[in-house]
Protein backbone atom coordinates (compact mmCIF):
# COMPACT_ATOMS: atom_id res chain seq x y z
CA UNK A 1 0.00 0.00 0.00
CA UNK A 2 1.26 3.47 -0.72
CA UNK A 3 0.61 6.39 1.58
CA UNK A 4 -1.60 7.90 -1.08
CA UNK A 5 -4.04 5.06 -1.54
CA UNK A 6 -7.46 6.12 -0.40
CA UNK A 7 -9.95 3.34 -0.13
CA UNK A 8 -13.64 4.10 -0.23
CA UNK A 9 -14.61 3.88 3.39
CA UNK A 10 -17.65 4.93 5.29
CA UNK A 11 -15.76 6.70 8.02
CA UNK A 12 -13.56 9.70 7.52
CA UNK A 13 -9.99 10.13 8.70
CA UNK A 14 -8.85 13.53 9.86
CA UNK A 15 -5.17 14.05 10.63
CA UNK A 16 -4.14 17.02 12.74
CA UNK A 17 -0.64 18.36 12.20
CA UNK A 18 1.05 21.60 11.28
CA UNK A 19 4.77 21.60 12.00
CA UNK A 20 5.33 23.74 15.05
CA UNK A 21 5.21 22.30 18.55
CA UNK A 22 2.75 23.44 21.16
CA UNK A 23 0.20 25.02 18.83
CA UNK A 24 -2.70 23.02 20.27
CA UNK A 25 -2.81 20.00 17.95
CA UNK A 26 -3.50 17.54 20.73
CA UNK A 27 -5.95 19.82 22.50
CA UNK A 28 -7.89 20.30 19.26
CA UNK A 29 -7.79 16.61 18.33
CA UNK A 30 -9.26 15.76 21.73
CA UNK A 31 -11.84 18.55 21.57
CA UNK A 32 -12.95 17.94 17.99
CA UNK A 33 -13.20 14.24 18.82
CA UNK A 34 -15.38 15.05 21.83
CA UNK A 35 -17.50 17.38 19.72
CA UNK A 36 -18.14 14.62 17.18
CA UNK A 37 -18.86 12.02 19.87
CA UNK A 38 -21.33 14.34 21.57
CA UNK A 39 -23.12 14.61 18.24
CA UNK A 40 -23.60 10.86 18.48
CA UNK A 41 -20.89 9.86 16.05
CA UNK A 42 -18.64 6.91 16.72
CA UNK A 43 -15.13 8.24 17.08
CA UNK A 44 -11.65 6.79 17.54
CA UNK A 45 -8.66 9.03 18.26
CA UNK A 46 -5.16 7.84 17.45
CA UNK A 47 -2.09 9.27 19.15
CA UNK A 48 0.58 9.24 16.47
CA UNK A 49 2.89 11.56 18.38
CA UNK A 50 5.27 8.69 18.89
CA UNK A 51 7.73 9.70 21.54
CA UNK A 52 5.61 12.63 22.75
CA UNK A 53 2.30 10.91 23.29
CA UNK A 54 -0.03 12.79 25.62
CA UNK A 55 -3.49 12.63 24.02
CA UNK A 56 -4.73 10.45 26.88
CA UNK A 57 -4.00 13.15 29.46
CA UNK A 58 -6.54 15.46 27.78
CA UNK A 59 -9.09 12.84 28.85
CA UNK A 60 -7.78 12.67 32.39
CA UNK A 61 -6.06 9.33 31.87
CA UNK A 62 -2.68 9.07 33.57
CA UNK A 63 -1.06 5.99 32.23
CA UNK A 64 -3.13 4.01 29.78
CA UNK A 65 -2.99 0.24 30.34
CA UNK A 66 -2.86 -0.40 26.63
CA UNK A 67 -0.96 1.52 23.98
CA UNK A 68 0.61 1.32 20.54
CA UNK A 69 3.61 -0.26 22.23
CA UNK A 70 1.75 -3.55 22.38
CA UNK A 71 0.75 -3.12 18.75
CA UNK A 72 4.37 -2.68 17.72
CA UNK A 73 6.00 -5.07 20.16
CA UNK A 74 3.44 -7.78 20.81
CA UNK A 75 1.53 -7.73 17.58
CA UNK A 76 -1.80 -6.78 19.19
CA UNK A 77 -4.43 -5.47 16.79
CA UNK A 78 -5.69 -1.90 17.10
CA UNK A 79 -9.05 -3.31 18.14
CA UNK A 80 -7.35 -4.96 21.17
CA UNK A 81 -5.76 -1.79 22.48
CA UNK A 82 -8.71 0.63 22.40
CA UNK A 83 -8.93 2.66 25.61
CA UNK A 84 -12.29 3.90 26.86
CA UNK A 85 -12.97 7.49 27.92
CA UNK A 86 -15.70 9.40 29.76
CA UNK A 87 -17.45 9.81 26.42
CA UNK A 88 -19.48 6.78 25.39
CA UNK A 89 -18.77 6.93 21.66
CA UNK A 90 -15.14 7.89 21.91
CA UNK A 91 -12.20 5.53 22.36
CA UNK A 92 -8.48 6.11 22.14
CA UNK A 93 -5.50 4.40 20.64
CA UNK A 94 -2.85 5.81 22.88
CA UNK A 95 0.85 6.18 22.50
CA UNK A 96 3.47 5.53 25.10
CA UNK A 97 6.26 8.01 25.68
CA UNK A 98 8.29 5.54 27.67
CA UNK A 99 8.92 2.87 25.13
CA UNK A 100 9.20 3.79 21.49
CA UNK A 101 10.88 6.43 19.41
CA UNK A 102 9.63 7.33 15.94
CA UNK A 103 12.86 6.22 14.30
CA UNK A 104 12.63 2.69 15.64
CA UNK A 105 9.43 1.97 13.75
CA UNK A 106 10.16 -0.07 10.67
CA UNK A 107 8.65 0.56 7.29
CA UNK A 108 6.54 -2.57 7.47
CA UNK A 109 5.30 -1.69 10.96
CA UNK A 110 4.22 1.67 9.63
CA UNK A 111 2.35 0.15 6.71
CA UNK A 112 0.65 -2.33 9.03
CA UNK A 113 -0.42 0.50 11.31
CA UNK A 114 -1.80 2.57 8.43
CA UNK A 115 -3.60 -0.46 7.01
CA UNK A 116 -5.32 -1.04 10.32
CA UNK A 117 -6.14 2.63 10.82
CA UNK A 118 -7.86 2.64 7.44
CA UNK A 119 -9.97 -0.29 8.61
CA UNK A 120 -11.04 1.10 11.99
CA UNK A 121 -14.76 0.76 12.36
CA UNK A 122 -15.82 4.32 13.25
CA UNK A 123 -17.48 7.29 11.62
CA UNK A 124 -14.50 9.48 12.36
CA UNK A 125 -10.89 8.59 13.06
CA UNK A 126 -8.80 11.52 14.21
CA UNK A 127 -5.02 11.25 14.18
CA UNK A 128 -2.99 13.47 16.47
CA UNK A 129 0.40 14.14 14.91
CA UNK A 130 3.58 15.27 16.58
CA UNK A 131 5.49 18.45 15.81
CA UNK A 132 7.99 18.58 12.95
CA UNK A 133 8.09 17.05 9.49
CA UNK A 134 9.28 13.52 10.26
CA UNK A 135 8.50 11.16 7.38
CA UNK A 136 6.20 9.06 9.56
CA UNK A 137 4.31 12.21 10.46
CA UNK A 138 4.01 13.30 6.83
CA UNK A 139 2.83 9.85 5.77
CA UNK A 140 0.18 9.72 8.47
CA UNK A 141 -0.93 13.20 7.38
CA UNK A 142 -1.21 12.01 3.79
CA UNK A 143 -3.41 8.98 4.47
CA UNK A 144 -6.12 11.27 5.86
CA UNK A 145 -9.25 12.33 4.01
CA UNK A 146 -9.00 15.69 5.74
CA UNK A 147 -5.53 17.07 6.28
CA UNK A 148 -5.86 19.57 9.09
CA UNK A 149 -3.15 22.01 10.14
CA UNK A 150 -3.17 23.97 13.37
CA UNK A 151 -1.56 27.39 13.37
CA UNK A 152 -1.06 30.06 16.00
CA UNK A 153 -0.67 33.73 15.09
CA UNK A 154 3.10 34.04 15.23
CA UNK A 155 5.78 34.13 12.60
CA UNK A 156 7.68 30.95 13.56
CA UNK A 157 4.51 28.88 13.55
CA UNK A 158 3.63 30.28 10.12
CA UNK A 159 7.10 29.49 8.80
CA UNK A 160 6.99 25.94 10.18
CA UNK A 161 3.57 25.38 8.69
CA UNK A 162 4.67 26.46 5.19
CA UNK A 163 7.58 24.06 5.56
CA UNK A 164 5.32 21.26 6.75
CA UNK A 165 2.84 21.65 3.89
CA UNK A 166 5.65 21.94 1.36
CA UNK A 167 7.23 18.73 2.63
CA UNK A 168 3.90 16.94 2.61
CA UNK A 169 3.23 18.08 -0.95
CA UNK A 170 6.68 17.01 -2.16
CA UNK A 171 6.24 13.63 -0.53
CA UNK A 172 2.83 13.30 -2.13
CA UNK A 173 4.15 14.17 -5.59
CA UNK A 174 6.90 11.60 -5.24
CA UNK A 175 4.52 8.95 -3.91
CA UNK A 176 2.02 9.53 -6.72
CA UNK A 177 4.63 9.31 -9.44
CA UNK A 178 6.17 6.25 -7.82
CA UNK A 179 2.79 4.59 -7.87
CA UNK A 180 2.67 5.13 -11.63
CA UNK A 181 6.25 3.94 -12.03
CA UNK A 182 7.93 7.32 -12.55
CA UNK A 183 9.82 7.36 -9.29
CA UNK A 184 13.12 8.54 -10.70
CA UNK A 185 11.81 11.46 -12.70
CA UNK A 186 11.05 13.79 -9.82
CA UNK A 187 14.40 13.39 -8.13
CA UNK A 188 16.20 13.58 -11.46
CA UNK A 189 14.56 16.84 -12.44
CA UNK A 190 14.99 18.24 -8.94
CA UNK A 191 18.72 17.39 -8.92
CA UNK A 192 19.13 19.26 -12.19
CA UNK A 193 16.85 22.09 -11.21
CA UNK A 194 19.40 24.81 -11.98
CA UNK A 195 19.63 23.63 -15.53
CA UNK A 196 15.86 23.86 -15.87
CA UNK A 197 15.64 27.16 -14.00
CA UNK A 198 13.50 25.65 -11.28
CA UNK A 199 13.57 27.58 -8.04
CA UNK A 200 10.91 25.95 -5.93
CA UNK A 201 8.46 23.13 -5.56
CA UNK A 202 5.70 24.87 -7.47
CA UNK A 203 8.01 25.42 -10.44
CA UNK A 204 9.13 21.80 -10.21
CA UNK A 205 5.53 20.62 -10.43
CA UNK A 206 4.82 23.02 -13.28
CA UNK A 207 7.92 21.78 -15.06
CA UNK A 208 6.94 18.13 -14.67
CA UNK A 209 3.44 18.85 -15.92
CA UNK A 210 4.74 20.82 -18.87
CA UNK A 211 7.40 18.32 -19.94
CA UNK A 212 5.41 15.13 -19.71
CA UNK A 213 1.75 15.42 -20.55
CA UNK A 214 0.88 12.11 -18.89
CA UNK A 215 2.43 13.38 -15.67
CA UNK A 216 0.39 16.53 -16.02
CA UNK A 217 -2.80 14.51 -16.16
CA UNK A 218 -1.83 12.36 -13.19
CA UNK A 219 -0.74 15.26 -11.03
CA UNK A 220 -3.72 17.44 -11.89
CA UNK A 221 -5.97 14.64 -10.90
CA UNK A 222 -4.18 13.61 -7.70
CA UNK A 223 -3.18 17.06 -6.48
CA UNK A 224 -6.64 18.53 -6.88
CA UNK A 225 -7.41 16.40 -3.85
CA UNK A 226 -4.48 17.83 -1.93
CA UNK A 227 -6.52 20.27 0.09
CA UNK A 228 -5.64 21.32 3.57
CA UNK A 229 -7.98 22.58 6.29
CA UNK A 230 -6.58 25.36 8.45
CA UNK A 231 -7.48 26.03 12.09
CA UNK A 232 -6.11 29.16 13.70
CA UNK A 233 -5.65 28.57 17.42
CA UNK A 234 -4.92 30.90 20.36
CA UNK A 235 -6.42 33.88 18.62
CA UNK A 236 -6.32 37.00 20.77
CA UNK A 237 -7.84 39.74 18.64
CA UNK A 238 -9.76 40.50 15.49
CA UNK A 239 -6.65 41.05 13.34
CA UNK A 240 -5.42 37.55 14.19
CA UNK A 241 -8.55 36.03 12.69
CA UNK A 242 -7.79 37.49 9.28
CA UNK A 243 -4.35 35.87 9.21
CA UNK A 244 -6.11 32.67 8.16
CA UNK A 245 -7.40 34.35 5.01
CA UNK A 246 -3.97 35.80 4.28
CA UNK A 247 -2.25 32.43 4.71
CA UNK A 248 -4.76 30.95 2.31
CA UNK A 249 -3.83 33.41 -0.40
CA UNK A 250 -0.09 32.99 0.17
CA UNK A 251 -0.22 29.17 0.01
CA UNK A 252 -2.15 29.30 -3.22
CA UNK A 253 0.47 31.54 -4.79
CA UNK A 254 3.47 29.84 -3.18
CA UNK A 255 2.63 26.15 -3.65
CA UNK A 256 -0.56 26.18 -5.69
CA UNK A 257 -2.19 24.44 -2.75
CA UNK A 258 -5.81 25.20 -1.95
CA UNK A 259 -6.70 25.43 1.70
CA UNK A 260 -9.98 25.73 3.51
CA UNK A 261 -9.93 28.10 6.43
CA UNK A 262 -12.34 26.23 8.68
CA UNK A 263 -12.16 28.56 11.63
CA UNK A 264 -10.37 29.84 14.68
CA UNK A 265 -10.30 29.11 18.40
CA UNK A 266 -9.62 31.96 20.70
CA UNK A 267 -7.07 31.95 23.46
CA UNK A 268 -9.02 30.79 26.47
CA UNK A 269 -7.90 30.40 30.07
CA UNK A 270 -10.45 27.63 30.48
CA UNK A 271 -8.22 25.48 28.25
CA UNK A 272 -5.29 25.26 30.60
CA UNK A 273 -7.69 25.05 33.53
CA UNK A 274 -9.29 21.97 31.99
CA UNK A 275 -5.86 20.51 31.27
CA UNK A 276 -4.78 21.14 34.86
CA UNK A 277 -8.01 19.68 36.22
CA UNK A 278 -7.56 16.74 33.85
CA UNK A 279 -11.11 17.01 32.57
CA UNK A 280 -12.10 16.92 28.90
CA UNK A 281 -12.61 20.52 27.81
CA UNK A 282 -15.73 19.88 25.73
CA UNK A 283 -17.44 18.12 28.65
CA UNK A 284 -16.72 20.63 31.36
CA UNK A 285 -16.43 23.98 29.67
CA UNK A 286 -19.34 23.81 27.28
CA UNK A 287 -20.40 27.40 27.87
CA UNK A 288 -17.06 28.99 26.95
CA UNK A 289 -16.25 30.90 23.78
CA UNK A 290 -13.55 28.32 23.06
CA UNK A 291 -16.10 25.50 23.02
CA UNK A 292 -18.33 27.47 20.65
CA UNK A 293 -15.34 28.08 18.36
CA UNK A 294 -14.51 24.39 18.33
CA UNK A 295 -18.09 23.46 17.49
CA UNK A 296 -18.04 25.90 14.57
CA UNK A 297 -14.74 24.43 13.32
CA UNK A 298 -16.13 20.89 13.72
CA UNK A 299 -19.24 21.75 11.75
CA UNK A 300 -17.19 23.20 8.93
CA UNK A 301 -14.96 20.13 8.82
CA UNK A 302 -18.00 17.87 8.72
CA UNK A 303 -19.80 19.80 6.02
CA UNK A 304 -16.82 20.95 4.01
CA UNK A 305 -17.62 24.57 4.80
CA UNK A 306 -15.43 27.55 5.55
CA UNK A 307 -15.55 30.32 8.07
CA UNK A 308 -17.47 33.37 6.90
CA UNK A 309 -15.72 36.55 7.86
CA UNK A 310 -17.17 40.03 7.79
CA UNK A 311 -15.66 42.05 4.99
CA UNK A 312 -14.15 45.46 5.35
CA UNK A 313 -10.76 46.39 6.65
CA UNK A 314 -10.57 43.71 9.33
Amino acid at each position, binding site marked *: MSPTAKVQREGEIWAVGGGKGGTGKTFLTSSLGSFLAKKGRKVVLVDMDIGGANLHSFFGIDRPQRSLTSFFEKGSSLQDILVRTDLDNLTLITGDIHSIASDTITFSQKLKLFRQILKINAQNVLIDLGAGSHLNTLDAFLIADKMVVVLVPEVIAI*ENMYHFIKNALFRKVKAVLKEYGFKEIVQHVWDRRQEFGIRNLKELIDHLKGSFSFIGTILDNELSRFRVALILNMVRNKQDIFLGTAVKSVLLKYLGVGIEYVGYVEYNDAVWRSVRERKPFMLNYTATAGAANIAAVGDNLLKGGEIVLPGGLG
Partner: protein
Amino acid sequence: MNKDHAASLYAVLELAPGAGLRDVQNAYLRLRRLYADQSIVLEPLEEEFTADRRREILAEVEAAYQKLLVVLHAETPKAEALLPDDGAAGTGPDETPAMVFGGLALRKIRERLNIDLNEISRELKLRLELLRSIEEERFEALPEETYLKSHLRSYARYLGLKPEKIVEDYLGRYRARAKK
Protein backbone atom coordinates in the same frame (compact mmCIF):
# COMPACT_ATOMS: atom_id res chain seq x y z
CA MET B 1 -16.75 39.84 -21.90
CA ASN B 2 -16.96 36.07 -22.08
CA LYS B 3 -17.58 33.82 -19.10
CA ASP B 4 -14.11 32.26 -18.94
CA HIS B 5 -12.49 35.61 -18.96
CA ALA B 6 -14.71 36.87 -16.15
CA ALA B 7 -13.99 33.67 -14.21
CA SER B 8 -10.27 34.27 -14.55
CA LEU B 9 -10.70 37.81 -13.21
CA TYR B 10 -12.55 36.43 -10.21
CA ALA B 11 -9.82 33.83 -9.76
CA VAL B 12 -7.17 36.53 -9.52
CA LEU B 13 -9.17 38.00 -6.64
CA GLU B 14 -9.50 34.46 -5.23
CA LEU B 15 -13.27 34.59 -5.53
CA ALA B 16 -15.85 32.21 -6.94
CA PRO B 17 -17.31 33.43 -10.24
CA GLY B 18 -20.36 35.58 -9.74
CA ALA B 19 -19.35 37.12 -6.42
CA GLY B 20 -21.06 40.45 -5.77
CA LEU B 21 -19.63 43.93 -5.79
CA ARG B 22 -19.06 44.03 -2.06
CA ASP B 23 -17.10 40.77 -2.11
CA VAL B 24 -15.03 41.94 -5.03
CA GLN B 25 -14.28 45.14 -3.21
CA ASN B 26 -13.28 43.38 0.00
CA ALA B 27 -11.11 40.85 -1.78
CA TYR B 28 -9.37 43.63 -3.66
CA LEU B 29 -8.65 45.67 -0.55
CA ARG B 30 -7.52 42.61 1.35
CA LEU B 31 -5.14 41.38 -1.36
CA ARG B 32 -3.78 44.82 -1.98
CA ARG B 33 -2.98 45.23 1.68
CA LEU B 34 -1.55 41.73 1.94
CA TYR B 35 0.95 42.09 -0.90
CA ALA B 36 1.79 45.76 -0.37
CA ASP B 37 2.48 45.70 3.35
CA GLN B 38 4.90 43.82 5.57
CA SER B 39 3.30 40.98 7.45
CA ILE B 40 4.20 37.87 9.40
CA VAL B 41 2.45 35.86 6.74
CA LEU B 42 4.97 36.84 4.05
CA GLU B 43 8.05 37.38 6.19
CA PRO B 44 9.10 33.70 6.13
CA LEU B 45 8.89 33.68 2.32
CA GLU B 46 10.88 36.80 1.50
CA GLU B 47 12.85 34.94 -1.12
CA GLU B 48 9.72 33.82 -2.94
CA PHE B 49 7.80 37.04 -2.63
CA THR B 50 10.44 39.52 -3.75
CA ALA B 51 9.59 43.17 -4.31
CA ASP B 52 9.27 42.41 -8.03
CA ARG B 53 6.99 39.46 -7.51
CA ARG B 54 4.77 41.50 -5.21
CA ARG B 55 4.55 44.31 -7.73
CA GLU B 56 3.53 41.74 -10.32
CA ILE B 57 0.81 40.36 -8.04
CA LEU B 58 -0.43 43.84 -7.16
CA ALA B 59 -0.63 44.78 -10.82
CA GLU B 60 -2.63 41.66 -11.61
CA VAL B 61 -4.99 42.30 -8.72
CA GLU B 62 -5.43 45.94 -9.73
CA ALA B 63 -6.14 45.09 -13.36
CA ALA B 64 -8.61 42.34 -12.49
CA TYR B 65 -10.39 44.63 -10.06
CA GLN B 66 -10.72 47.53 -12.46
CA LYS B 67 -12.13 45.22 -15.13
CA LEU B 68 -14.55 43.58 -12.74
CA LEU B 69 -15.79 46.97 -11.59
CA VAL B 70 -16.76 47.73 -15.15
CA VAL B 71 -18.45 44.34 -15.58
CA LEU B 72 -20.37 44.69 -12.35
CA HIS B 73 -21.25 48.24 -13.18
CA ALA B 74 -22.67 47.14 -16.51
CA GLU B 75 -24.72 44.47 -14.77
CA THR B 76 -26.21 46.83 -12.22
CA PRO B 77 -29.90 47.43 -12.97
CA LYS B 78 -30.48 50.77 -14.63
CA ALA B 79 -32.54 52.32 -11.87
CA GLU B 80 -29.75 52.01 -9.34
CA ALA B 81 -26.86 52.15 -11.75
CA LEU B 82 -23.80 53.95 -10.61
CA LEU B 83 -24.40 56.62 -13.16
CA PRO B 84 -21.81 59.29 -13.33
CA ASP B 85 -23.01 62.72 -12.40
CA ASP B 86 -24.39 64.86 -15.23
CA GLY B 87 -24.94 61.63 -17.14
CA ALA B 88 -21.64 62.23 -18.86
CA ALA B 89 -21.21 58.56 -19.70
CA GLY B 90 -19.86 57.78 -23.10
CA THR B 91 -18.42 54.62 -24.51
CA GLY B 92 -14.72 54.73 -25.00
CA PRO B 93 -12.84 52.82 -27.68
CA ASP B 94 -12.05 50.06 -25.18
CA GLU B 95 -15.71 49.77 -24.24
CA THR B 96 -14.99 51.15 -20.81
CA PRO B 97 -17.73 53.59 -19.96
CA ALA B 98 -16.07 56.93 -19.41
CA MET B 99 -17.31 57.92 -16.00
CA VAL B 100 -16.94 61.20 -14.27
CA PHE B 101 -16.94 60.80 -10.52
CA GLY B 102 -18.72 63.48 -8.58
CA GLY B 103 -20.28 63.42 -5.13
CA LEU B 104 -23.38 61.55 -6.22
CA ALA B 105 -21.40 58.78 -7.92
CA LEU B 106 -19.28 58.39 -4.82
CA ARG B 107 -22.34 58.14 -2.63
CA LYS B 108 -23.98 55.58 -4.89
CA ILE B 109 -20.90 53.42 -4.98
CA ARG B 110 -20.60 53.63 -1.22
CA GLU B 111 -24.24 52.67 -0.77
CA ARG B 112 -23.96 49.74 -3.14
CA LEU B 113 -21.03 48.55 -1.10
CA ASN B 114 -23.13 48.84 2.01
CA ILE B 115 -20.56 51.04 3.68
CA ASP B 116 -21.83 53.43 6.28
CA LEU B 117 -20.53 57.01 6.32
CA ASN B 118 -19.97 56.62 10.05
CA GLU B 119 -17.65 53.71 9.36
CA ILE B 120 -15.55 55.76 6.96
CA SER B 121 -15.52 58.66 9.37
CA ARG B 122 -14.31 56.39 12.15
CA GLU B 123 -11.73 54.48 10.12
CA LEU B 124 -10.26 57.48 8.31
CA LYS B 125 -10.67 59.90 11.19
CA LEU B 126 -12.55 62.39 9.03
CA ARG B 127 -15.49 64.44 10.27
CA LEU B 128 -18.87 63.05 9.27
CA GLU B 129 -19.98 66.50 8.19
CA LEU B 130 -17.05 66.81 5.83
CA LEU B 131 -17.85 63.47 4.18
CA ARG B 132 -21.47 64.52 3.75
CA SER B 133 -20.40 67.78 2.17
CA ILE B 134 -18.20 65.88 -0.28
CA GLU B 135 -21.04 63.62 -1.33
CA GLU B 136 -23.54 66.45 -1.55
CA GLU B 137 -21.03 68.67 -3.33
CA ARG B 138 -21.53 71.50 -0.89
CA PHE B 139 -18.35 73.04 -2.17
CA GLU B 140 -18.62 76.11 0.04
CA ALA B 141 -18.37 73.87 3.11
CA LEU B 142 -15.27 72.08 1.86
CA PRO B 143 -11.70 72.91 2.88
CA GLU B 144 -9.19 74.35 0.47
CA GLU B 145 -7.94 72.26 -2.43
CA THR B 146 -4.81 70.71 -0.89
CA TYR B 147 -6.76 69.36 2.06
CA LEU B 148 -9.73 68.36 -0.01
CA LYS B 149 -7.41 66.45 -2.32
CA SER B 150 -5.96 64.38 0.50
CA HIS B 151 -9.43 63.68 1.95
CA LEU B 152 -10.71 62.61 -1.45
CA ARG B 153 -7.74 60.33 -1.90
CA SER B 154 -8.32 58.47 1.33
CA TYR B 155 -12.06 58.30 0.75
CA ALA B 156 -11.54 56.91 -2.76
CA ARG B 157 -9.03 54.40 -1.50
CA TYR B 158 -11.44 53.24 1.15
CA LEU B 159 -13.99 52.50 -1.53
CA GLY B 160 -11.35 50.73 -3.53
CA LEU B 161 -11.40 53.29 -6.32
CA LYS B 162 -8.38 54.70 -8.08
CA PRO B 163 -7.61 57.90 -6.16
CA GLU B 164 -6.03 59.69 -9.14
CA LYS B 165 -9.18 59.40 -11.23
CA ILE B 166 -11.50 60.41 -8.39
CA VAL B 167 -9.42 63.43 -7.41
CA GLU B 168 -9.14 64.60 -10.98
CA ASP B 169 -12.87 64.27 -11.67
CA TYR B 170 -14.01 65.73 -8.42
CA LEU B 171 -11.64 68.66 -8.46
CA GLY B 172 -12.67 69.35 -12.02
CA ARG B 173 -16.24 69.82 -10.86
CA TYR B 174 -15.09 71.75 -7.80
CA ARG B 175 -13.10 74.21 -9.85
CA ALA B 176 -15.78 74.63 -12.48
CA ARG B 177 -18.27 75.54 -9.80
CA ALA B 178 -15.86 77.92 -8.08
CA LYS B 179 -15.53 79.91 -11.30
CA LYS B 180 -19.26 80.57 -11.55
